[in-house]
């Protein structure tokens, strides 16, 4: 992500330090993760210590400070999904992708994350891959679905 783009985002919030979270959210949406270089630009422009920017970037769930793969897998760990077998699904996804929640594989193909509740509890267990919902999946079905991704 280039510095001009980050500059534009910061300008949108009039360079207000109190908008730090909103600014980081915009960068996260744009770039899918927060590289250190971007945090440095934010720190300089908002006149905030880098440590403060990093603290924010690591405190909130929405941010990732590691690169994200080509496909983002979100396994819903809401209570309804849990009682309907989300743990088995998660274990299957870990098995197929070789990564744990919060990780990206070495080929940068998949990133895996668990989310608290996607709000589609009637369809549980729910997995979202690149924003597309896969409802009422069995471990075997998710394993097949994942094999289709390049």
């Amino acid at each position, binding site marked *: 992500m280039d510095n001009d783009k980050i500059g534009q985002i910061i300008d949108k919030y009039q360079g*207000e*330090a*109190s*908008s*730090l*979270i*909103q600014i*980081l*959210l915009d960068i996260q949406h744009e770039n899918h993760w927060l590289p250190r270089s971007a945090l440095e630009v934010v720190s300089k422009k908002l006149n905030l210590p880098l440590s403060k920017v990093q*603290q*924010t970037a690591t*405190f*909130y*769930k*929405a*941010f990732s400070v590691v690169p994200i793969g080509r496909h983002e897998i979100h396994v819903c*760990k*809401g*209570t*309804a*999904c*849990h*009682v*309907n*077998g*989300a*743990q*088995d699904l998660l274990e299957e996804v870990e098995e197929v992708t070789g990564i744990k929640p919060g990780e990206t594989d070495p080929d940068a193909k998949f990133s895996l994350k668990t*989310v*608290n*509740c*996607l*709000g*589609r*509890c*009637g*369809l*549980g*267990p*729910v997995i979202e891959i690149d924003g597309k*919902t896969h*409802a*009422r999946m*069995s471990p075997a079905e998710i394993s097949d679905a994942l094999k289709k991704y390049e």
Partner: protein
Amino acid sequence: MPLIKSPEELEKVREEILSRRDPHKLCISVCAGASCLASGAGEVIAAFKAELEKQNINADVDTKGSGCPGFCEQGPVVVIHPEEICYLQVTPDDAGEIISQTIVGKKPVERLLYTDPDTGNKVVKMNDIPFYKNQVRHLIGNNIKIDPKSIDDYLAQGGYAALAKAMHEMSPEQVIEEVKESGLRGRSGSGFPAGRKWEFCRNSEDEHKYVICNCHEGDPGSYADRRLTEGNPHNVLEGIIIGAYAIGAQDAFVFVGDEFPQTVENMRLAIKQAEEYGFLGKDILGSGFDLTVRISIDGGGYVLGESTALMASMEGRIGEPKTKYDHATDRGLWAKPTVLNNLQTWANVPLIINNGAAWFRQTGTDGSTGTRVFSITGKIKNSGMIEVPMGMSLKEVIYDIGGGTVTDKKFKAIQVGGPLGGFVPESQLDVQVDYDQMTDAGLAMGPGLIVADESTCIVDMVKYFLTFLAHESCGKCTPCRDGIRQMLHILNNITAGRGNKGDLELLELISTVQKKAALCALGQGASDPLLSTLKHFREEYEAHIEEKRCPAGVCKALGAVSSGANV
């Protein structure tokens, strides 16, 4: 759209909207809530449009993506107005048949109707389906008629009349009096009387005041709050504007999670439309009152729903709770007097102003008035978003609305109030949806109800909640950060077959200390699921510890093969 400057102009605009609409005209409403969209509602809407065009009747029939009517389990839900014929689990392939049979031929498509599981009879109309019939839907009843992206739809249903009434017929004090009189209590589960909170803030000396709508809903397994906001954002917004007028606040905020993009999108659009019509901005409806509403997106985390953490996060800081030396109504956001209410609390305000406090009190119990919107999920047949009158028993909620457990496995417990709530066993299902009864039963009235049947392991569920809270604890205070971890450690041992005699007593001891010593309600309430299950399901813990056996067959180390899925 020229700004609306008076109640008379508002009524003129409303008449104009209604005059363009024929109440007898056919309209196909497809639920465009997040759950139905995930089940393909977008494709269904497109298929209807294409089919109407193909048959050349698109001028005679409207199509609409509507707010969520609640029957999420059976989505996509389609309702055909004005008869309110309800079709369930509709796919794009069904569009042709629905149009030929129902729209043109005036006959229902039998196979897409709801089948009563007891009688086998088909039910044609939405409100005759037991799931709907047994609810009282003051807040969400109109969702199926409203496109959440259309302010005109909201106006056609009488929207913003309460705002005009409050601003032109009532003083701020009278609005507060009416809300106090209505008995409206905080819908986050806190149960704090809304009118009293508003009054404290109004009476606070500082001129600059804020109101905040808490749309955070970080509980896992609950989605009523965001679905309500997403399905009828103007209803929530109208409540906020009336409240801000009563309190004397010039700035309002909607605090909502980054992980709910649809809620953010619909609310953002609603604010823009309200500005264009003159319900927000300067001199609202010619009253001289000014208000701006902004959206504050949070970065995610359960604790952010807590008031001090929420305000810290809105100020751009780390969302950690702090000790409450001051009331937010004196020193809240940016140290200014602030009213924070849950979005369901705000959504009730237009109802109260339109119909009066006495009308509002007719529903519910003496101490808990009005209705409550929940999501009900888990091992329940009719999972979805429901609205029930206060005073309804949990048994009625589960069986009359929810239809009982999913397969015919035996009911075990209902979990109320999420990670800081408790479990109710079958023997206590007479407990009513009522703040005081729920508190006495050790429950918090959060927006999520989760049903467990005999294939659910209670120890595993409690472990699940503590795992969640261990991740979500902000880490600031030791009792919460380490207490949860220690409790979880013991539970992990118990479910792995390494439980020891004395573990349960140790868990109780840690809970007691944590309840007294934790800084905020997250730490204080973290052991509530544990304590309520130690009371009602102790033998299940003992089976894990003493017999190394998981009666529900969930805990893998104790011989189970799957984690309890039965659907």
